[in-house]
């Protein structure tokens, strides 16, 4: 996955993401595609979550899945989740859940749903995403409605690392944040470096061009766009608009 938050010169925030699957289920030699990515595309849907007749938030999801991976809550915050790999992560959490009855930790995707339903501000969402004990490690990418409100929360089950918009810690520029599937304090592996090209594209275009169209173009640039990409989502917090498209990545 690749998530990007950008702030234009007037302080307006934009958020976009590519959702990539793993390479599991294998390679379809005939169609040059990863099988699981192709099976998820027809399941991709935009959900308008309604309460009392009004839209509470919008998400991009997969049919049959009740959690939240990508969402916007109008005038409050935007959200995306990128997978974080860990050998001792979620499987141990699942075993603990089965074996012990205390259930003190939260399922990642159910926590995010709860945050979207309940949190009424960027700060409240950030606190909840940072403090809650989780079943599995994850990256939360959160954008707000006010200038400077954007962050990447790197979570393991108990601890959190926070990088905010304006920080140079990720190697991103002062006006944008890029998160893929690797910790910002480490170099991504040579065989899956989407961070460097995404940062290069953003930097070369400059803050003056910060917009949803810029983010879409960056998310459409190989290898940020790749054969594992299922969908691209664009979100605008002020309007609460969310748009999503399934993607096809041409052969190199």
């Amino acid at each position, binding site marked *: 996955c690749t998530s990007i938050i950008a702030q234009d010169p007037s302080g307006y925030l934009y958020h976009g993401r590519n959702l990539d699957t793993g390479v599991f289920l294998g390679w379809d030699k005939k169609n040059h595609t990863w099988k699981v990515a192709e099976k998820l595309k027809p399941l991709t849907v935009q959900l308008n979550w309604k309460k009392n007749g009004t839209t509470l938030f919008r998400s991009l999801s997969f049919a049959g*899945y009740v959690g939240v991976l990508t969402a916007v809550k109008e005038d409050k915050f935007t959200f995306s989740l990128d997978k974080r790999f860990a050998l001792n992560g979620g499987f141990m959490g699942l075993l603990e859940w089965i074996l012990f009855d205390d259930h003190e930790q939260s399922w990642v995707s159910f926590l995010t749903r709860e945050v979207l339903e309940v949190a009424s501000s960027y700060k409240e969402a950030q606190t909840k995403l940072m403090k809650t004990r989780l079943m599995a490690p994850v990256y939360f990418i959160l954008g707000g409605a006010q200038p400077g409100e954007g962050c990447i929360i790197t979570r393991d089950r108990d601890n959190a690392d926070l990088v905010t918009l304006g920080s140079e810690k990720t190697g991103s520029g002062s006006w944008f944040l890029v998160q893929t599937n690797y910790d910002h304090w480490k170099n991504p592996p040579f065989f899956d470096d989407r961070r460097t090209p995404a940062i290069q594209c953003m930097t070369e275009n400059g803050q003056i061009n910060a917009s949803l169209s*810029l983010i879409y173009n960056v998310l459409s640039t190989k290898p940020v766009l790749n054969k594992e990409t299922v969908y691209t989502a664009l979100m605008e917090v002020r309007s609460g608009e969310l748009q999503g*498209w399934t993607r096809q990545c041409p052969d190199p």
Partner: protein
Amino acid sequence: SGAYPPDKHFEVPVYDVDLDLSPLQRWAPLMADKGPQLVALIDDVKDLIKSVVGETIFKIIMNNLSKVATTLPYPFYEELVGISTFSELPLSTITMYNIFYEAFTL
């Protein structure tokens, strides 16, 4: 790339989820449309999990998933039951699909 604006052909469909409906009912319209495609994916996911964790652990996980579902906080258990009903897939399978992230970060 100069890919923007995106091709309208690839826009994803939009559905409402009415949180004022009971958790058992709120996924019915979506599953009526998308249930068959979900069934097509699930079998492959099961094969994948089996290949990753092995037959024995796979059986332990699947045997426990219905129990796991009952321990999920409200309204998730009820929603999974609703999805299971409308998709005609077993509750254990729907639970596996929904907790896939946690179980397979490796």
